[in-house]
């Protein structure tokens, strides 16, 4: 399984903070994103925002980052702490 997390404005807009996905379905972040958009037609625009960030296992990652079973993938907007 892949564990997928959403934070902040993205979490509110999607209306969900996490979901699980069969790991066999996505070998990279890019594939995961496509599957999420295919499974949830309303998410296409939100998940294709260019400034959206992604972390794999709590490290900043990119579209080409490879995924494997047990990974935790998080999507979130640019950070605004401090």
């Amino acid at each position: 399984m892949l564990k997928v997390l959403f934070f902040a404005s993205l979490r509110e807009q999607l209306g969900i903070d996490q979901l699980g996905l069969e790991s066999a379905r996505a070998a990279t972040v890019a594939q995961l994103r496509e599957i999420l958009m295919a499974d949830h037609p309303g998410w296409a625009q939100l998940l294709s925002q260019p400034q959206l960030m992604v972390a794999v296992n709590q490290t900043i990652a990119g579209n080409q980052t490879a995924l494997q079973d047990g990974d935790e993938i998080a999507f979130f907007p640019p950070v605004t702490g401090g």
Partner: protein
Amino acid sequence: MIHIQQEDFDSGAELQALEASGPATGAVCSFTGLARDYGDKEGVSALFLEHYPGMTEAAIENILRDAHERWPLQGVRVIHRVGTLQPGERIVFVGVASSHRKEAFAACEFIMDYLKTGAPFWKKEITAQGEHWVEQKASDQSASQRWQKTP
């Protein structure tokens, strides 16, 4: 020393703990960030701070490791609050102890600049008209990028 917590903290005690770092410490610089009553909009009645438990702590540890590689530091303390905060409340504290003034100022500002752009926290402003998530500022991006030129 990194703490992420909902509760308020004693910034004065944090400062004085850094001042007591030992006889080689000649300089302590601290920064406190506070919730203002205006931000992207006027009339902010509260802030809501969200974070990514686990990744946030790891990101701050990385920032502190970078700071220790750049400057000789005798102590660093970072506290960041999450949850709902009223105007005037402390959000974040960064304190640094070093032998010399220049290093203490630089390391404290470096840590704050990277916290703003590299640690997963998100801020929502609540006003009488509704609530909105704060947008990342271009000035925060450029503040952290300037450290990439020369140490």
